[in-house]
């Protein structure tokens, strides 16, 4: 899908989470990423969509989740937007800190950052935008931490 852009606007449901993951899997495969990278990309998209549906839009049927997939020569760029109150990343505890290891939540953003080459999170008055970037021919292709 080089040079192409795919856009979706979905309801704030668990079905959207599965749809986002499956679409990311398909787009990443078609973009030529290796199997491990496809899994990492689709999981990062799943986690970001979970955040949008649960924490951003809080399952509100009036609020939508937008996804965009764009393949450039260098990157696959996936943007996930919600219409929630915003995400303050500084308030998310470090899931690797000893005191947080046994917490049952709070690992989503960490996994996203582990699996993607670059992640940009911005909050506006209309919600949160998460931009996930995976280099097509980057040195870090294949994941930064997953292979350690």
């Amino acid at each position, binding site marked *: 899908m080089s040079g192409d852009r795919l856009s979706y606007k979905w309801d704030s449901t668990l079905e959207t989470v599965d749809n986002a993951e499956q679409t990311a899997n398909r787009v990443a495969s078609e973009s030529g990423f290796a199997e491990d990278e496809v899994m990492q990309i689709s999981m990062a998209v*799943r986690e970001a969509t979970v955040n949008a549906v649960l924490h951003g839009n809080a399952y509100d049927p009036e609020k939508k989740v937008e996804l965009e997939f764009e393949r450039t020569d260098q990157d696959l760029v996936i943007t996930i937007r919600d219409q929630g109150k915003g995400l303050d990343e500084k308030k998310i505890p470090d899931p690797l800190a000893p005191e947080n290891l046994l917490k049952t939540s709070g690992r989503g953003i*960490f996994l996203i950052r582990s699996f993607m080459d670059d992640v940009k999170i911005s909050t506006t008055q209309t919600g949160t935008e998460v931009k996930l970037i995976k280099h097509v021919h980057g040195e870090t292709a294949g994941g930064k931490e997953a292979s350690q």
Partner: protein
Amino acid sequence: MNLKINTRQVDGVNIVDCNGRITLGEGSVVLRDQIKDLLAKGQKKILLNLGDVNYIDSSGIGELVSAYTTVRNQGGELKLLNLTKKVHDLLQITKLYTVFDVKDDEATAIKAFR
């Protein structure tokens, strides 16, 4: 594929064979209910066989942590068996691999319960 669970008992250890995905929603609930059910019956030696779990997300990881702490808080033991590479890698990068008692052989795992 959603999570399917089958439980069997060997030498007093409850082996929970998991097959499918442990993810937000049904997969996590199925596992949670199974652990709750075993504990309600007084069964506190639990071996989670994850050999056929091909996918787990952060909610699923949270569910494993919840199962581990719930069983431990009731004086029981929960161990993990037969991790797939994907699950193994996830537990490594989240630093949970050393928290869980992970086994790759069922007989050895059963003997390891006190």
